[in-house]
């Protein structure tokens, strides 16, 4: 092989395949325990999720989700107890209420549906952790990078350009106005 001169044109090495970064907020009592159970059961799933533990999904401020996207997450997963199973009686209902609102807002912001997911996973459902993480990773991988930090920079640049443009054209307009 190596003796033969390559006929293919020399190309740059292909960019590293996109690996989505997903931030997960798991409640201590159900979903975090389920993830522990998945570990103890040695289930294998995609390594793309980073779990942040909270006591209850009700602690998750919609701002946490927005912050995660703003800091570069390609997806955000929120896991709580099944309805009626909340360790704190009804924290997950409050979560649901807030997240319904948030989902509408994310849409307005141009963040696709599959990038945010709310799942009820009980402490016994280690296999569901595996299924949800795998499914969501595949889904977000298909959507491609969100890269909000990159977009913010781009938007800042646009704003600067606009500002320069406004500054450059402002005096003339003023003159015209005076006349």
């Amino acid at each position, binding site marked *: 092989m190596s003796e033969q001169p390559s006929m293919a044109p020399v190309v740059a090495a292909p960019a590293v395949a996109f690996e989505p970064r997903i931030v997960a907020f798991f409640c201590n009592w159900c979903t975090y325990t389920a993830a522990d159970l998945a570990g103890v059961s040695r289930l*294998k799933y995609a390594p793309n999720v980073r779990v942040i533990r909270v006591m209850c999904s009700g602690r998750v401020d919609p701002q946490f989700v927005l912050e995660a996207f703003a800091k570069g997450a390609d997806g955000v997963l929120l896991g709580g107890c099944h309805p009626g199973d909340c360790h704190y009686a009804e924290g997950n209902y409050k979560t649901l209420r807030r997240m319904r609102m948030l989902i509408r807002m994310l849409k307005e912001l141009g963040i696709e549906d599959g990038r945010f997911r709310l799942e009820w996973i009980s402490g016994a459902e280690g296999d569901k952790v595996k299924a949800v993480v795998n499914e969501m990773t595949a889904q977000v991988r298909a959507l491609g990078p969100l890269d909000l930090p990159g977009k913010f920079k781009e938007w800042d640049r646009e704003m600067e350009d606009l500002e320069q443009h406004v500054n450059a054209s402002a005096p003339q307009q003023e003159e015209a106005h005076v006349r």
Partner: protein
Amino acid sequence: MAEQKEHQNGIPRIGFYICHCGSNIASIIDVEDVRKYVATLPGVVVSRDYKYMCSDPGQELIAQDIREHKLERLVVSACSPNLHEETFRNAAAKGGLNSFYFQMVNIREHASWVHEDKAAATRKAKDLARAAVYRVRFHQALEKRKVPVDPNVLVVGGGIAGIHAALTLANAGKKVTLVEREATIGGHMALFDKTFPTMDCAACILTPKMSAVKSHPNITLWTYSEVEKVEGYVGNYKVSVKRKPRYVNEDLCVGCMACIDACVFKEPKFPDKFNQGLGKRKPVYIDFPQATPKVVLIDPATCIQMKTGKCKKSCADACDRKAFDFNQQPELKEIQVGTIVLATGFKTYDAKRDALYGYGRYPGVFTALEIERLVNASGPTLGDVVLRDGRHPKAVGIIHCVGSRDEKTNKWCSRVCCMYSLKLAHLIKEHSGAEVYNFYIDMRTPGKGYEEFYDKLLAEGVHFIRGRVAEVTDWAMTPEEQGKLVLRVEDTLAGFVRRIPVDMVVLATGMEAQADAGEVRHKFNIGCGSEGFFQERHPKLAPVNTFTDGIFIAGACQGPRDIPDTVAQAGAAAAEALVLIDAGHVELEPNTAHVVEEECCGCKSCVPLCPYSAITLDEAKKKAVINEVLCKGCGTCVAACPSGSIRQNLFEDDEIFSEIEGVLAQ
């Protein structure tokens, strides 16, 4: 193996430790790489790895570093905080650091055990470590809250598990309330004739314990009662118990049973639930002669007085203690306890679900529990093994694993059926002289003296056929099969399909969670596994604990088990309750919420969110106030406060935002 640096501009001095966990973590995650990487993060002055961080030398290493390097924060990457958070908090305290200046990173359950790609798992471990390093800067010094533990205990369920737990606690001098929903305690064990493998008479070993419960000065026994509501938290539970009406005053009745003889129904007419419907009872009845408490009760569905109000009430006339009260109402009692032991038991699999075995269709098919009553000397036939038509069986087939080890119904092994099938085979043979065939998948006899018992049965001439029975049918193919029930089975040892004609079929039904286990677990705020049994805190290390502190589980409500294991577990649950009681107080996580008064605008958004009514509005100041004793630390109000003036210890906004930033930084 350490990287050390000088203090950096205002950031607390952080020590980072990563555990190999033998090879559990180190075989997937490049521990050395993570350690080196974390050493470069701002604030990290010590970064070490160690084979077993949780071991004494591992903890000592941390404590020593805290003193030597004046560490102000601690991060440990190891297993789940549910396992060892407390261990490392203690290590921090040993080194003189406030325990809450610590953050744990879970790279075993959440990384090395669930990922195969080493590079990706190592990347994840770095991200998670970085998040913790960022977060831990914002940690505050906190103290655990101490609350007193009420020494009284509630035991729910009066089977052998509940009885044993209650007696153990009562013998230790604690006041116990035992609540049982049936009219008598004893549970399933009271139904059995003999117990394997020793063939002790079940009643002989159980009834003394039952009467000990009744007469124990420290036990309040409430039978025919159910827990309605549970409020509070570890050490301080308020429980409402509904006492169902027996229509007989429990304090007056002495159990002479003169009323039963006097009942207007001269003969017992109604199916006897205690005898699995094989016997008959009157509307006024007592489950069995040794029922505890020995108090009769009236079944309102069959009693003429209860139904029509037009009975001559000969029962009441026969009672010289005037114990009858046809207007008795349910009574709601409230008790205060510190700890609760749940021993609510199991139910047997409904044999009708396996239609091909013909239970309910062929009168010759029985469940194992029915046979327990038939072979019982105090059962409906006084120990005579008879078919429903009165004939004595000449051949009996016992089908194992009905509702166990079956993809279509229950996947689990019920653990007791092999052994009780052997016991029943022995008893049936002894009582009736019939030929007995056991149809099994595998013989499972793990226990002291169990395998020896199996050997004994083999010697007794009981037949064993390995194979799952396909069908029970009355369709005869030969004259010998006429009038018989035929079991069609592939004999997997002989390698061909057999047809075995018998007169009686016994279905060795498996164990399932109680039908209302889901409801009960909601009342007590504990979890259930996917099979419906109550979930233990840890399958190996905390088998009687639940995720709700102060609530313990014992016996078959947690999973199928036999009597020796149940009694052992009941003792363990009692011991766990005693630990809390004798300590006198429990320490609670300081993860409560509090209001920063200057920032609160008094909008009241938080007030209705709290499920524990811990938040009120101070009307004079127009500020929200959180009662720390009532707060359980869910943080729902924190997430909802529009002005951000509610803070949750251990989960402050700063901490979580920095964790988000850390996990995503590159």
